């Protein structure tokens, strides 16, 4: 087993909607898996067509009590392998490796009221969050958009467990979820979004417009946000003077790791900041969703998993 990973066995595969399956993951050595906090996710590592596929999935079960992990995976027609493998090939009893839980999308401990906005499979992180809040007697509400009642994963569970907090919006019934719901809420309200990149961008922009402080707005990317040509570029390791070529279509992070440079990393999509490196010189083409506009100007850093050189060579403090 690779260090820092857990070996698990798949059990209890269940359809949560025609296109979403849930999977329970138990430790392969019968021990209880470590606890996590609502909003945490794991990275799963599976081999498919001789290729290692790493995918991030939110944990959806009771974060404090169960001792196992449960994830839900939607079968996507645009799948790059992960969702197809999980939905079509994963069987009960299969073994795989997963990362320890990580949390880049925690509940705010300062919030007086939590408002969750989910689109489609974006419901998953909120399932564990709501369990946690209900146990603590905290105030929350869920707004959940789905193509139809039939396609709405966890519909029955949600309506049973949170009859007063959950609001559904089905496109088939011409009932659309709107960011206007966030307007006129009381001070202390925090908003959380999970869905497509477009949905999250739209809701975050509207929240700012209504006057929500940045600290009250929470969302988590599960895909790289900023795209552009993946041209080759050069970096210089400032301390050793060594020059590395980052090939076309390859990330700086992978290049550094392949050359034996040990740096921490986690999400690999520019969302968590784990692989941030100080820049001594050079212009960076920032493609992450971790740094804000002010930080991009004020800090001389690069998020190695997604960002590249704007032009010329970038000198790293490594």
């Amino acid at each position, binding site marked *: 087993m690779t260090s820092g990973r857990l070996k698990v066995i798949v059990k209890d595969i269940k359809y949560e909607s025609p296109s979403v399956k849930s999977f329970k993951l138990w430790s392969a050595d019968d021990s209880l898996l470590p606890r996590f906090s609502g909003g945490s996710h794991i990275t799963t590592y599976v081999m498919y067509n001789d290729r290692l596929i790493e995918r991030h999935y939110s944990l959806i079960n009771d974060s404090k009590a169960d001792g196992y992990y449960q994830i839900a995976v939607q079968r996507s027609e645009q799948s790059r392998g992960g969702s197809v493998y999980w939905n079509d090939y994963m069987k009960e009893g299969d073994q795989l490796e997963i990362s320890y839980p990580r949390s880049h999308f925690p509940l705010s401990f*300062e*919030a*007086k009221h939590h408002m969750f906005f989910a689109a489609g499979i974006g419901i998953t992180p909120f399932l564990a969050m709501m369990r946690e809040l209900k146990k603590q007697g905290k105030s929350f509400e869920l707004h959940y958009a789905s193509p139809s009642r039939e396609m709405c994963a966890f519909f029955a569970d949600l309506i049973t467990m949170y009859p007063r907090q959950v609001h559904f919006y089905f496109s088939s019934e011409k009932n659309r979820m709107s960011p206007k719901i*966030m*307007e*006129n*809420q*009381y*001070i*202390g*309200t925090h908003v959380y979004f999970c869905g497509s990149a477009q949905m999250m961008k739209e809701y975050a922009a509207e929240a*700012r*417009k*209504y*006057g*929500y*402080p*940045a*600290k*009250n707005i929470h969302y988590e990317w599960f895909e790289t946000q900023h795209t552009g040509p993946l041209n080759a570029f050069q970096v210089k390791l400032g301390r050793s003077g060594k020059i590395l070529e980052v090939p076309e279509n390859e990330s700086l992070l992978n290049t550094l790791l392949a050359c034996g440079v040990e740096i921490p990393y986690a999400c690999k999509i520019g969302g968590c900041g784990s692989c941030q490196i100080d820049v001594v010189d050079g212009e960076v083409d920032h493609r992450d969703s971790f740094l804000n506009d002010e930080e991009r100007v004020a800090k001389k850093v690069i998020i190695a998993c997604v960002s590249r050189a704007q032009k010329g060579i970038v000198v790293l403090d490594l």
Partner: protein
Amino acid sequence: MEAVRLKLIQEQRISDYIYVLEVKTLTGSLNFYHGAAEQLRFKHQSFSLPIRFTAPYQEVGMYRIFIDTYFLTDEERLNVLNQLRTHDFQLECLSPLSFVLQPNTQKVLLFIEEIALLESLTVMEMLANLHIDMILLVTDELQITGKQINYKLWQDSMPTAISFQNKDVHFLLSWQKIGTHIFAAGAWPMVDRLKRIAEDVGFSDELFQFKGYGEMTPYVFCVRCYKLTKGNQNTQVQCEHCRTILDVSNQYSKRLGAYLGNIKAI
């Protein structure tokens, strides 16, 4: 850089010591729309006094300046006024206003004590110019629209001030909606009290701006009972709530407004 020279157009005394001046720029323009200055400089003489300014008509080179003559003698006060009426002048030692209007602010609750009157008048002017809803909350001694302040330019546009001394401030704040900001200007005890209530209700740092006057009371956060006790950094204090002896570190929490007090090791 060209010096900014100003000329008085109109003056008005709005309290015992505070004057509001409508001025026109003769040359240049000030660096800030709303700001503070420390000196009025005439050709042959300078006066140090608290000054604030706003730019309601900046596009035509007009500013509104507030001066507080409390620290001047009667003779100096007369001299300043005479100089203003007869000579052009400059503002020296400029700085931005302590309060900054954040984007997407819908409403401001402005808490004022008399000590911060000059700053507050400027903030009120700024908010009125930008058409931001405001609620004025003042101490009993300070009635902006009452006897102490007579400012005809404001009579129509300024809201009536409400005394907050006997009000349930927690209740008032807890009913505020997203988009509301708090500006608090006054002595530190008032600012500290409001800060705690605001935090308890859910106002984040971004939504609470303040300017404290006078001596600041340092507090210590007790790691045992999580309550605050008066005390300063690098000292030893007894928690007023759980009686634990605390070694106070120099680690300061802006959010709590207190130094961290660790349990004293025996």
